[in-house]
């Protein structure tokens, strides 16, 4: 049997022999036998170290609370893919790939924090002073401050503030939490001064802050959050595959299905006659000259 790896690479993460699988020097089987948790293994994987007990507890809390979020883009993506009845991994893969610039942008939030912390360090400013600069720069440029606001939990994300409190309870309030709390203070103050409504911190603002303070780089934090959500999206896809109607368009269901024909609302160009081929050139040139089509170009 060919046991060569499918890709030749030098890696500092792991190796595998006929005798054992080793992660950053630790035999995986020994880690599990010794009673380390899956969260401990995540520290070994991404940070090449075993965490302190409070750090392990923080990651457990963060991953546990982020895993399930009912109908978000990720679950909807998984369900959407599942209605065609592909293999289950396709639906899970789709759910994880929904995490982009807007849905759970953990890496972007982390890089924002790092950028402004570095500026504070280089310019000799306090974290609080730099947080105000951050808020002003974002809002002056009409850009949303990452980590603030959630389109569904408009009265404050039920996960976010408890994550902050847990981080403080575990005495893990490092420079990132100082920065995030200061961002929130200046953000709220500015919105209040402008007569605008309250917008709370979201789970990225809180959770990613905690992950940064316990040593995860922005991309590692993003990976942890996005992949963790894959677990629950698998459950949503599986529920639909086992109990739901494939294709999502049956007219025999008592409830209108997700892609029933009546769900389609069309707002494009009016119905029109397909031009004959002999009229094509003249028709096409006229269309270009008139330019009406340009409003539809995407």
């Amino acid at each position: 049997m060919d046991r060569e790896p499918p890709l030749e690479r030098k890696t500092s993460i792991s190796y595998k022999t006929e005798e054992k699988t080793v992660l950053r020097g630790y035999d995986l089987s020994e880690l599990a036998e010794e009673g380390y948790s899956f969260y401990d293994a995540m520290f070994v994987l991404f940070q090449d170290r075993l965490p302190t007990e409070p750090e392990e507890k923080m990651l457990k809390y963060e991953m546990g609370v982020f895993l399930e979020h009912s109908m978000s883009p990720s679950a909807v993506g998984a369900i959407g893919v599942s209605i065609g009845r592909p293999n289950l991994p396709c639906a899970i893969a789709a759910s994880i790939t929904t995490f982009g610039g807007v849905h759970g942008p953990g890496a972007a939030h982390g890089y924002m924090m790092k950028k402004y912390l570095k500026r504070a360090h280089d310019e000799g400013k306090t974290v609080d002073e730099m947080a105000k600069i951050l808020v002003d720069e974002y809002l002056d440029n009409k850009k949303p401050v990452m980590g603030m606001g959630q389109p569904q939990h408009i009265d404050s994300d039920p996960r976010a503030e408890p994550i902050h409190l847990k981080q403080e309870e575990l005495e893990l309030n490092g420079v990132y939490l100082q920065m995030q709390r200061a961002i929130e203070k200046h953000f709220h103050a500015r919105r209040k001064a402008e007569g605008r409504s309250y917008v709370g911190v979201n789970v990225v603002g809180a959770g990613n802050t905690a992950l940064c303070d316990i040593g995860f780089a922005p991309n590692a934090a993003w990976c942890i959050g996005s992949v963790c959500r894959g677990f629950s999206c698998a459950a949503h896809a599986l529920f639909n595959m086992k109990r739901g109607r494939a294709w999502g368009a049956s007219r025999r269901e008592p409830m209108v299905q997700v892609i029933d024909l009546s769900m389609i609302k069309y707002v494009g160009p009016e119905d029109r006659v397909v031009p004959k081929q002999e009229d094509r050139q003249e028709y096409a040139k006229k269309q270009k000259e008139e330019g009406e089509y340009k409003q539809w170009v995407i």
Partner: protein
Amino acid sequence: MGDLGDKKGIGNLDNPGLPYDYSQREYGTVPLDDKRARFQWVSEVAYKNVHRIVARGYDTTELVEEGYGVTDVLFVDFQARIPTTEEDKMLNYVMILALEDGLSMPVAISRLVAQSKTFLTQACGASILAFGHAYGAYSAFGNMLLDSLEAGQAQGLSIEQIAQGIVKEHLGSESLGVSDLMLKDPAAKRMIARAEKLGVAGTYVELIKAIAKAAQEASDTPVDIDMLGAMGSVMMDLGFSPEATWAILAVTRSFAAGAHYIEEVERGSYQKLGQPLTPKECYDGQADRPVPPLADRDKHAKSALCKDLDQWNKAEQDRKKVLGSGYSIHEEIEDPSKKTGIKSVGKKL
């Protein structure tokens, strides 16, 4: 939208053989259906409102405040129950072992995707696609066990007899859970021992041990329980369905795929379109040949059309020589959803 049926278009698709008048077919979208309930995202897994996220009846923030973690929430999401501490410990153990597997396929895919300068999440998602019915075949393995147990128990067979039947049919299969992969690595056997020590081993662990014994008797070469067999049987004794097992362990591996994506970006460089070459030594297809002039097409072109069954049968065989054509792959026609282990499609809610 207007009805263009009377306006001059292509008519009845210019073909009198069409069994209906295409030109008279209506345009316009379908009106909203007010005779049935409006569409809603139906779920028995979870819901949320402005203030809470609730999985199987448990508020998720309250769950973590109470000290529950990912492994517990997996039981909640997939089984609608809180696990015992032993079950939770066992799942934790299994997930640590499932996390890393060196430079195997999920990680290779993740690293290849990374080379194209993508989002990290694309690489993590792609890694999950590596889990099929050979690599990480938890669905195929689990359903083989489920079906064999159900059929065997209905016939009054013992576990040993059921195991012998499985081995007779599946020895050498990628999804048997018994192979020569773990003869020197004790991790699979230690996992089984841990499940027994924690008191969570049940029928499926008993069955995989019996399968291993039967396979050892039937095989000419040494075999034993491998990681698929150990993790798959333990997960099923923890109450997870074959599909839930497949999903949980594929996602677990994806965390490590993320770390490998990061390392690939940190150590490597991106690939441009057209950059990788394929050396001729890798090629064993047709010898280089001149492209015939277009005007000579008829002299060189061969029709694929078969006018009778003998021609068709010969063509089927000949075409198997063209690797990449797909003629050498045979698939049984069945409900494709069953390949994922799903037993029914379209069950009414």
